[in-house]
């Protein structure tokens, strides 16, 4: 009788842990689909600007997230970059949505997130650009998010639009449009050669609509 009770308890425990175990199945890998402007200006951009759609109900499994963002990456190694975008993240407390600005200097990663500025099912305008001297500035819908001294490490780099997820159960859908590069004189130009740079996502791919618009989609 006692053994039977223990068996029932064990089965209950297995059943209760199943949803979390399913989430583990696709975990451990980061998937990204990255577009860049392969034009000359896209290799030496002092800023990246574009529009992006925040989905109405993005799927994200527990402990994982999806990111849609724009970058200026100095030399394409990820050691020195400036990034702006949004992230949806699911924890035990539920799903959270926030805008963020991030940068990496010599591989040291810094991340500032801003809750309450964006909502589901909405379009937003994102900009990250060299501001002045050693400073860079991040914008959401034309309003400054942050201005930071990047100690003159870089003032230009590769202009990128990126869609990232951390689990095969997450969405990696993104829609970017109106993509622009900023030149050394501070003038914005439309991307003129939108190309795929990176895609290690087994499910999502880059769908180029034009040189300034793309989807990352199934």
């Amino acid at each position, binding site marked *: 009788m006692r053994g039977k*009770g223990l068996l029932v*308890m064990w089965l*209950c*425990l297995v059943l*209760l*842990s199943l949803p*979390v*175990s399913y*989430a*583990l199945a696709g*975990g*451990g*890998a*980061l998937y990204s689909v*990255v577009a860049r402007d392969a*034009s000359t*200006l*896209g*290799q*030496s951009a002092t800023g990246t600007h574009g529009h992006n759609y925040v989905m109405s109900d993005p799927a994200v*499994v*527990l*402990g*994982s*997230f999806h*990111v849609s963002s724009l970058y200026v*990456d*100095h*030399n*394409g*190694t*990820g*050691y020195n970059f400036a990034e702006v975008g949004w992230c949806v993240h699911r*924890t035990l407390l539920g799903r959270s949505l926030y805008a963020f600005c*991030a940068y*990496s200097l*010599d*591989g*040291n*990663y*810094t*991340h*500032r997130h801003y809750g309450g500025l964006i909502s589901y099912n909405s379009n937003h305008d994102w900009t990250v650009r060299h501001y002045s*001297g*050693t400073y860079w500035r991040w914008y959401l819908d034309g309003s400054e998010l942050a201005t930071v*001294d990047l*100690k*003159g*490490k870089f*003032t*230009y780099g*590769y202009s*990128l639009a*990126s869609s*990232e997820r*951390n*689990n095969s159960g997450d969405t990696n859908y993104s829609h970017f449009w109106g993509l622009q590069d900023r030149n*050394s004189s501070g003038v914005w130009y439309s991307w003129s050669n939108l190309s795929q*740079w*990176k895609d290690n996502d087994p499910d999502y791919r880059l769908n180029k609509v034009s040189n300034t618009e793309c989807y990352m989609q199934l």
Partner: protein
Amino acid sequence: MTKKVLLPLGVLVAAAISISLFCYAKLPFGGEPGSPGAHQYMDWQSMSDEERVAHFRDLGQIEFKDFAELQRNVDFPVLEPTNTLGRRLLGIFQPAGRPIVDVTALFENGLQICICRNETPPDYQNYLKQVAEDKVAGYWKSDGTPKIIKINGIEAICDDPGFNDIEGRKVPRPGYICWYDGGANYSIYGDKIPVSDLLAVAKSMMNNSKEGSGPKSQNNL
């Protein structure tokens, strides 16, 4: 009767929460060190030497086979390292679209040297102040703290390799030594290479300076 039901139920709930938390800790949110990072489209440190060279070539970069060839194409004295910790040079790359000298020299096993012209010298003291503020605000996600040192009388900033905490994940970051001299930023990066070793590379570059480092003009490549 109530006690008979509540006790096993309590044990059941406690065990379920424990198992869930255990599984949760195994998820990417709290994953293993060395796994790829979130908010980082490029997992540079996990790439092989061949993949790194291919990556730069895919970007359509100008390529120099050695420092001598680079020197022939620029009008300032290039600081060539005489000590590269036994690592062979794989290539020197310059993005095609850039109007100023901005090269990355790739060596075997995660050693790279970047030389980038920059008119604005960095203020390392101010940067450390900013790092301290970022730590207090919770923005700083690195497990290290940059340190200012002097190499041959030149101020440099450095740190040993470690990890970034990105959305709860430990993502490896390189060791580095950076300095500014004569209008250019010099950066030496080493995946899993401590500052004590990178210092030998930096000193060999500084000691190899014949006319003083840095550009004389801003001519294009």
